[in-house]
């Protein structure tokens, strides 16, 4: 048993770190390290830099222009990026639709859609969730009716993350209304510029515009944009859900945020003592640091099992549950550390170039909005309740 990475893996990590030092745009790094909101161009700048290095598709096989990295290498890459302050890779194109296109798309679709994703020239969003469906993804109501060489799509999607930037959307649509819920679903790629598509922002409690409603009204989609076979879309969607385990726990992000928490706690005081030496506060920091340490090893164990092609157990759900809880706790502790300064809430002061007279230390400006924003972590991507259902079904088999 060996908890350390191999010499090759360590060299690889150094390579990634060195690349990050040289090529991660400094404004972007500044934003991420200080919890400032990111914009479209921040994500794109990073994707372009990666693409230029040939690392545009860290999770892609080489045959499609990806890096062909092992799961361990992908993990090392993700962790190094997150710790250094790189933005997360927007997953909807790179990790979601691309995976489905690679596995189930035809040659034409692969040639048409994959390169722009790699290059960061086409932005994708996800059309799965519908109003009122919550975690019940199979209850798709959006209908696609065949009309000659087209499908005519009508319905509504919601929680469409960063849909306001998207050039394309991949949708689950119902193509057979009479089949059982999970049967009559198809997987369609839809141009966001198609007539009949309306995007409406959903503002979240932190004041962000991250998610959207997407309305589809008689949207005509060429049949060549159907992935795989009609009515088999649920299979592709499920394939995707089970596919991504590498970075689900967000270890790198959590380590970065833990370091930030400790910086804040070293600056703030109680009874004249830095919070990091205050017994009760430091005990809370210790708890989360130790939890994270354990989760990192659990994550490595999952990676190791993946490398050996062991059948996946409930690990992905463990990583999701603990990872989200740890990240939420880190932000909660940051808001605790800044005390009453968690109350001032001026979105303008949370921009990189802000020059106003907001009277807070820079580190105190962003924890609150992030704390609010991260409530979503335990809700989306299969809520933590759903994850616990999955675990208990696996272990109980009832």
């Amino acid at each position, binding site marked *: 048993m060996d908890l350390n990475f191999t010499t090759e893996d360590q060299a690889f990590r150094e390579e990634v770190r060195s690349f990050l030092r040289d090529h991660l745009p400094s404004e972007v790094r500044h934003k991420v390290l200080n919890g400032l909101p990111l914009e479209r161009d921040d994500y794109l700048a990073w994707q372009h830099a990666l693409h230029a290095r040939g690392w545009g598709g860290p999770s892609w096989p080489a045959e499609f222009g990806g890096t062909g990295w092992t799961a361990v290498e992908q993990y090392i890459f993700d962790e190094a990026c997150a710790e250094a302050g790189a933005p997360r890779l927007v997953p909807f194109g790179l990790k979601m639709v691309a995976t489905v296109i690679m596995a189930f798309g035809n040659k034409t679709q692969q040639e048409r859609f994959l390169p722009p994703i790699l290059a960061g020239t086409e932005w994708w969003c996800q059309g799965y969730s519908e109003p009122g469906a919550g975690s019940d993804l199979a209850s798709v109501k959006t209908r696609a009716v065949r009309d000659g060489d087209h499908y005519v799509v009508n319905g509504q999607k919601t929680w469409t993350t960063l849909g306001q930037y998207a050039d394309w959307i991949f949708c689950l649509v119902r193509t057979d209304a009479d089949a059982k819920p999970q049967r009559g679903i198809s997987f369609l790629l839809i141009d966001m510029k198609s007539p009949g598509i309306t995007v409406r922002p959903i503002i979240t409690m932190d004041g962000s515009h991250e998610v959207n409603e997407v309305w589809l009204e008689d949207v005509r989609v060429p049949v060549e944009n159907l992935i795989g076979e009609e009515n088999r879309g649920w299979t592709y969607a499920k394939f995707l859900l089970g596919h991504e385990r590498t970075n689900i726990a967000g270890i790198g992000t959590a380590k970065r945020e833990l370091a930030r928490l400790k910086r804040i706690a070293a600056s703030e005081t109680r009874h004249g003592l830095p919070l990091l030496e205050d017994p009760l506060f430091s005990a809370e920091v210790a708890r989360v640091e130790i939890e994270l340490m354990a989760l990192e090893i659990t994550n490595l164990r999952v990676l190791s099992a993946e490398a050996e092609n062991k059948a996946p157990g409930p690990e992905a759900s463990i990583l999701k549950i603990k990872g989200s809880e740890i990240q939420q706790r880190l932000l909660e502790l940051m808001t605790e550390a800044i005390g009453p300064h968690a109350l001032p809430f*001026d979105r303008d002061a949370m921009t990189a170039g802000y020059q106003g007279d907001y009277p807070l230390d820079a580190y105190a400006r962003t924890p609150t909005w992030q704390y609010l924003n991260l409530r979503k972590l335990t809700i989306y991507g299969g809520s933590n309740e759903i994850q616990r259902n999955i675990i208990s079904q696996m272990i109980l088999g009832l």
Partner: protein
Amino acid sequence: MDFSFTEEQNMLVDTAERFVSKEYGFETRNRIIASETGMSETVWQGLADLGLLALLVPEEDGGLNAGPVETMLVMSALGKGLLVEPYLASAVMSTRAIATLASPDQRGEWLERMLGGELIVAFAHDELGTRHEPLAIETRATRIGAGYLLDGRKSVIRHASQAGMLLVSALVEDGVALFALDRDTPGVRLAGYPSVDGARAADVFLEQVYLPESRRLGQGDASDALLAVLDTGLAALCGEALGVLQRSLDTTIEYARTRKQFGVPIGKFQALQHRMADMLIHVEQARSMTYLAAVRALDGDAARRATALSAAKVVVGEACRFVGQQAVQIHGGMGVTDELDISHCFKRLFAIEKTFGSTLDHLDHYRRTLAA
């Protein structure tokens, strides 16, 4: 032992709740918090007309001379409406401070205008380090001729930009004093911002601010009076929390009864059922401690009072966190949007937990008293 309320108290609750439900709907509130001033003159005048601004004013000054129980009840009703107007700062804390410390002349000058709704007073006590120690004041008032020069910084002062006057705590030669400061006094600078819960706040910078003797409230060290005012505020805040907690719980229960997933109301899922049971337990325990806070708020023994109030803040603070987080979680995606009121409840609960010392601050205070 008696947990019932008098007829007058019940009427008071009724008045405040009716006002909130009629005049302070979700849409109205959204308009108010998005407005230039961040508060509604109409609402404020409405509160004045109902006599609610006179609640803590002594009878001889034309008020109702009510106590902490009435304050708790009104705050709880206003909490249910997530009211962002400066009730706690002006009608509770500043009124209490003036009623306790001010001279008859000063009371005559201010209280009538306050209870009539003309004058809003912010309570400018907190500083950068105050959260853990209420008397850790660094603002200084230096005697100069027949007055004082004030220098210092007050931080996260709610409603400062909406107030005509600020009550400012400062160190003087013989201890601590409170000063009444018009907002437009030369040397006063406000850096304002919205608060996470929709109210407005500001940091107040005082640079060589001259105030005549007539602007000092009372003689001698006002530390005890100041602590009493702060504790009045804390007890009232617990009352407000209770209102927000109850609304959050009720809203969540209603959502769980009606929202369906996998074909059944989500309230049918036992894991959520048990979580709502735990939310209820938190709310009821918080209610008990809010009652205790109200009853102890006038305790003359400051140490004993502080201990009881710390205990209350711990229970209320834990409830704010648990109920707020679980209410959002049970609402799922809808819970994190700005569109439903539950996220606004969540933000107010978050802010309350951080106000006048966090749960951890008060737990720390309380545990230090154990060995004594």
